[in-house]
């Protein structure tokens, strides 16, 4: 029994095992409380789809050796900007969504490339610097959102006639275009097949890329930079590639998130978003040095189910205070903290 426990811990790591146990307890509690179980699962699936691409964006950066991408907000901002542009062009429906995605890619690629130039010069301190760079850029962009010359009355403040709004509604634009695509009803549940397919396609592309020659070289340079350098791989170049792909996925990720959520959140909206994605992938069993697609899938499922199910269940157990939010903070940061203690110690 004990050896089996150790085996499981070794295979999946403490966070994943404990969260699975916690989740099972939550589900049992929910059943006892006669919560709307199909409804909870439906909400979970919607939220899994919503967050999936953002979590996937962590894979290339971790695999290429730049660590957890705390500066994912850079990609997110590029995505938001592209989304605003598509509304400004007065487009609607699926074409508007695709335009936003297509416009975001070059912007993310350029900013990811520039950012990787910096990150390649600060090896070993990437995570601390990324965090503050991400926050600094979010604040800088907050100024930009106020000043950018967008004209669409849907997006700018009604009073004053300039500056983008805090939240921009996508209703009538491309609200839920992916979620409603090929939407099937299964046991009275609306499953957002479109979003999940889109996520699956991106996962497949990343998986394919990892199998390619460049991808293999990127993995090698992330795994053991010195060895990679010795065997003739240009480590910096492959770190750049990882960062660029991560930033692009961040941009696409926020557009997917927004179409499901129904709003773009500007200004301080992207500030803490990287943290959510990071803790999801870490919960899936990734570390600051190793990550795979399966980590993304299991991580996003676990984390989002935890958030969705804990809200009504725990609030019913303890109506006072906001315990489920407190649990989110503790789990989210506890997981990151655990991963950091595993990285360090090497002095």
């Amino acid at each position, binding site marked *: 029994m004990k050896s089996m426990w150790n085996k499981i811990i070794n295979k999946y790591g403490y966070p994943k095992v404990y969260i699975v146990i916690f989740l099972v307890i939550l589900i049992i509690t929910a059943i006892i409380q006669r919560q709307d179980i199909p409804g909870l699962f439906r909400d979970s699936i919607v939220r899994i789809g919503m967050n999936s691409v953002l979590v996937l964006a962590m894979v290339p950066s971790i695999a290429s050796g730049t660590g957890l991408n705390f500066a994912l907000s850079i990609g997110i901002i590029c995505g938001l900007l592209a989304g605003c542009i598509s509304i400004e062009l007065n487009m609607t429906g699926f074409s508007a969504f695709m335009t936003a995605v297509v416009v975001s890619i070059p912007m993310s690629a350029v900013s990811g490339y520039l950012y990787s130039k910096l990150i390649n*010069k600060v090896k070993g301190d990437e995570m*601390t610097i990324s*965090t*503050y760079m991400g926050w*600094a850029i979010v604040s800088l962009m907050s100024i930009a959102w106020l000043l950018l010359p967008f004209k669409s009355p849907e997006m700018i403040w009604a009073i004053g006639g300039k500056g983008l709004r805090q939240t921009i509604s996508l209703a009538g634009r491309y609200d839920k275009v992916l979620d409603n695509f090929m939407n099937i009803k299964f046991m009275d549940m609306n499953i957002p097949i479109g979003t999940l397919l889109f996520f699956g396609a991106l996962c497949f592309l990343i998986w394919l890329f990892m199998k390619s020659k460049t991808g293999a070289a990127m993995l090698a340079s992330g795994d053991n930079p010195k060895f990679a350098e010795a065997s003739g791989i240009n480590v910096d170049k492959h770190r750049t590639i990882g960062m660029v792909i991560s930033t692009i996925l961040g941009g696409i990720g926020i557009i997917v998130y927004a179409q499901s959520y129904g709003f773009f959140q500007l200004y301080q909206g992207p500030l803490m978003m990287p943290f959510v994605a990071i803790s999801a992938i870490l919960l899936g069993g990734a570390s600051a040095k190793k990550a795979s697609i399966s980590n993304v899938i299991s991580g996003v499922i676990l984390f989002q189910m935890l958030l969705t199910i804990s809200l009504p269940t725990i609030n019913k157990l303890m109506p006072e205070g906001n315990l489920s939010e407190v649990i989110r*903070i503790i789990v989210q940061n506890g997981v990151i*903290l655990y991963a*950091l203690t595993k990285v360090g110690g090497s*002095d």
Partner: protein
Amino acid sequence: MSTQMELKNKKEKKFNILNILVQNSVPIMFFIICFAGIYASKLNMNYILNELVLRLDRNLLLVLSLIIPVIAGMGLNFALVIGAMAGQMGLVAIKLLNVGGIPGLLLAMLIAVPFALLFGLGTGKVLNKTKGQEMITSLILGYFAMGLYQLVFLLFMGTIIPVKNPEIILPGGVGLKNAVDLKFIQYSLDNIWKLNIFGIKIPMVSILIIVLFCYLIRFIVKTKLGQDFRALGQDIHIAKVAGIHVDNKRLIAITISTVMAAWGQIMFLQNIGTLQTYSSHEQVGMFAVAAILVGGATVSKATIGQAILGTILFHILFIVSPNAGKNLFGDAQLGEFFRAFVAYGVIAMSLVLHAFQKRAMAKQKAEESEAQMD
């Protein structure tokens, strides 16, 4: 011959001035920004100075508490938040005991100490496990601790911890209210002796206490313990070889910082007069770190002078930026965003510079060892 010497001297002198300029580029830049901000804000100088004294009184002790971990080579202690929480626990305790005025303040400081010691040791333990990644760890640890803090104050108060005082407990009987009134200790230090110099009110006792803490830091740095800290800061490996108990000393350094942060937060709230139970501590770490960096400190070097200068500059920026933003761009919010950008940006920049420096030093070391091998 002599002219040559003179030339050389001159060159060195010039080089020196340039060097000083480069070394102090951050504070110089902020001097310029501050002056521009003061000019653009069109605020009255008297108002700015009064606000500045107020903010120095509130924040300086928190900023000073960053110095010792920096000297000990642990970088900037973003986990200052945790110390601030200990301070707030002291304040909640005196609110419950209903002890006001100076005795209340002293009691709060006393009650905060065991909490701060405990939290400091905990922080140190975690940071010892993550050598080389202290700053990101302390940041995340701060967030993690905020979660635990909410758990205790929002859910354990009134349930596990029997607190009944309706003045601070939510109507449901569980959890602390969002805002706890601290009027009964507000200005208790500041108002003991207030000097009025050209219309600027200076709370002398608070300033004296801060000066006392400056001397305390200087004293600690000069003792054997301080020497060990400095040795750690210079090179952890050499320190280890020299027989310094590395992990232990790091624990002590972070604990001193945490206790000072707890007292700093008490001083801060003593002046503000209201405890925002769930948000007073949130930004403490970031603002203190940004302030000391503006003063020219780096991840590996910080002095009392830099802390004071930085706090002055950073808070002038705080005072003037909403008005400056309004006057320049017609939007006060813009100034606030600029302020946030400055805080985050200065931290990011100095982290980058530190990483560059580390890299250059590693290169130099590698070259030296290669030269020795030859």
